[in-house]
């Protein structure tokens, strides 16, 4: 869909956590994906499948165990601290809990100004002006700059976090369950805002969510993760209307339909996702993706 080179290319990214007694959590295992410019790639999957770890490893909040992340043609997985900081400005992240990610003792305007100061984009009155602009852009009154997080509702706080993420004029914004904790009406407003900002600023989103109905609304492409690996990736319509992997199908089947007439009787399953913890010397089998349609890749099932 996107013309030219992708903004971000992740190649064979692995992130393992040692967890005592020689065991290892294979949180992210050989993940490869691309995010095009101005595109939203959604990452879906059940909790614990590695979505957050993938996001954190991509922006090097975690050091990757192996693999590369190429942003704008630069491999950032090997960058030193100083160079990394410059590139960080191009990638920002918004978290699920807007309350936890704002300092309760500081006016929210300061939180938004901080990235401007850190990256030496602006300072003094100039910074204030930019913060005011950002507030307007995300639908907040500029006067609200001087208020404290507890004076805001959940939706407003998430807007503050979005404003903060936009301060460095990033090209990629990672939203890690950024709307999951919001009430539906607020969630819908925040999603609309994110889509508006995308078309105005040409942003790319890596949109992490477990809510498939939300993902269907706002993504161009979708990656389905299971146990640290991508089992299916492709254009949104392909994933939602023509899912190929049995796990994708199971996920879609489980989504409740907001229509009481469409009530279905489902088989009562009790199976659970296996553990991603592996003993020393063992490791998960690597799944190979094969292309079933242009841009639509599916893992082979045994």
């Amino acid at each position, binding site marked *: 869909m996107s013309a030219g080179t992708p903004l971000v290319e992740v190649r064979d990214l692995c992130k393992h956590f040692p967890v*005592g*007694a020689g065991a290892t959590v294979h949180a992210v295992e050989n993940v490869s994906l691309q995010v095009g410019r101005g595109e939203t790639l959604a990452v879906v999957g059940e909790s614990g499948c590695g979505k957050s770890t993938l996001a954190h490893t991509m922006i090097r909040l975690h050091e990757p165990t192996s693999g590369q992340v190429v942003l704008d043609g630069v491999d950032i997985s090997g960058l030193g601290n100083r160079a990394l900081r410059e590139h960080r400005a191009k990638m920002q992240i918004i978290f699920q809990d807007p309350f936890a990610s704002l300092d309760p003792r500081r006016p929210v305007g300061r939180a938004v100004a901080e990235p401007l100061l850190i990256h030496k984009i602006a300072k003094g009155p100039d910074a204030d002006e930019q913060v005011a602009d950002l507030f307007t852009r995300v639908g907040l009154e500029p006067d609200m700059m001087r208020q404290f997080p507890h004076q805001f509702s959940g939706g407003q706080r998430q807007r503050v976090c979005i404003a903060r993420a936009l301060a460095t004029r990033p090209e990629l914004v990672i939203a890690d369950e950024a709307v999951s904790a919001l009430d539906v009406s607020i969630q819908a407003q925040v999603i609309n805002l994110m889509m508006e900002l995308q078309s105005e600023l040409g942003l790319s989103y890596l949109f992490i969510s477990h809510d498939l109905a939300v993902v269907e609304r706002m993504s161009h492409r979708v990656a389905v993760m299971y146990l640290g690996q991508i089992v299916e990736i492709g254009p949104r319509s392909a994933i939602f209307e023509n899912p190929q992997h049995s796990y994708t199908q199971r996920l879609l089947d489980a989504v409740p339909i907001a229509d009481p007439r469409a009530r279905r009787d489902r088989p009562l399953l009790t199976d659970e996702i296996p*553990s*991603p*913890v592996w003993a020393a010397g063992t490791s998960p089998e690597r799944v190979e993706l094969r292309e079933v349609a242009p841009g639509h890749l599916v893992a082979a099932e045994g």
Partner: protein
Amino acid sequence: MAAAQPELGSPGRQALRMFLRNRAAVFGLVLLSGIVLMTLFGSFFYDQDPTRIIARPLQGPGEDGAPAFGTDYLGRDVLAGVVNGGSTSLTVALVAVFLVVVIGVTIGALAGYYGGWIDTLLMRFTEVFQVLPALLFAMVIVALFEPSTRTVAIAIGLASWPGTARLTRAEFLRLKNLEFVKAARAVGASDFRIIWRVIFPNALPPLIVSITLIMGAAILFESGLAFLGLGDPNAQSWGQMIGLNRQTFLNGWWTVTFPGLAIFSTVLSFSLIGDGLQDAFNPKLRGR
């Protein structure tokens, strides 16, 4: 796909596993076991009356005819004193800590659980005890009653419970609003059951840590009282040995050094164990 699940088991067993991985803590446990064994059974192996004068006073270790740790200012066997003196210290500490737990936990639990005026009242009461200088308070009690091992233990216990009450209260305040307490109420459990069966076991980890440390403090406390001559004159203890020998200590370092080492090792062992337990109960360190 077969993945290796790390074994878990009960919270107690997990903590034990963590504890055993901590070398310093295990050393503390071994040291303490050694001291306890010496106190319980030492006299079978070193059958010497610590109160009897057996040789010339102030004979150093290694001198002709002197016992292994020398003799004190009256000519009593220092080693026999060290072997037998522990029982007073440990008994006093145990009884005192028992009192601390009974009083401190009860008051803290009730204050934290019920809140409101019950909390205010109990905490005022606790503060009164807390602002009293503990040593002075204990000295007054011992002076008022006869200085027996029992009085000393009670005095130390009464002087030491406020910290435990505060800790218990804080834990109860934290735990009482958790969902499983709500769930227990929704099942129809009584207050008594909720306090003792539901919340209390969850408050145990920090309490156990603090009680371990209080044991060490109580040993020191007892030694201090005995040093000042406020112990039971008929029960020999490490602190008392140091107190009685302090005048002549320049002529015989061994008279105070060996009982001093005994006190030091006991307190050290409790503190190492306490540290180990702290880590063992810390869920953030699990699975490392």
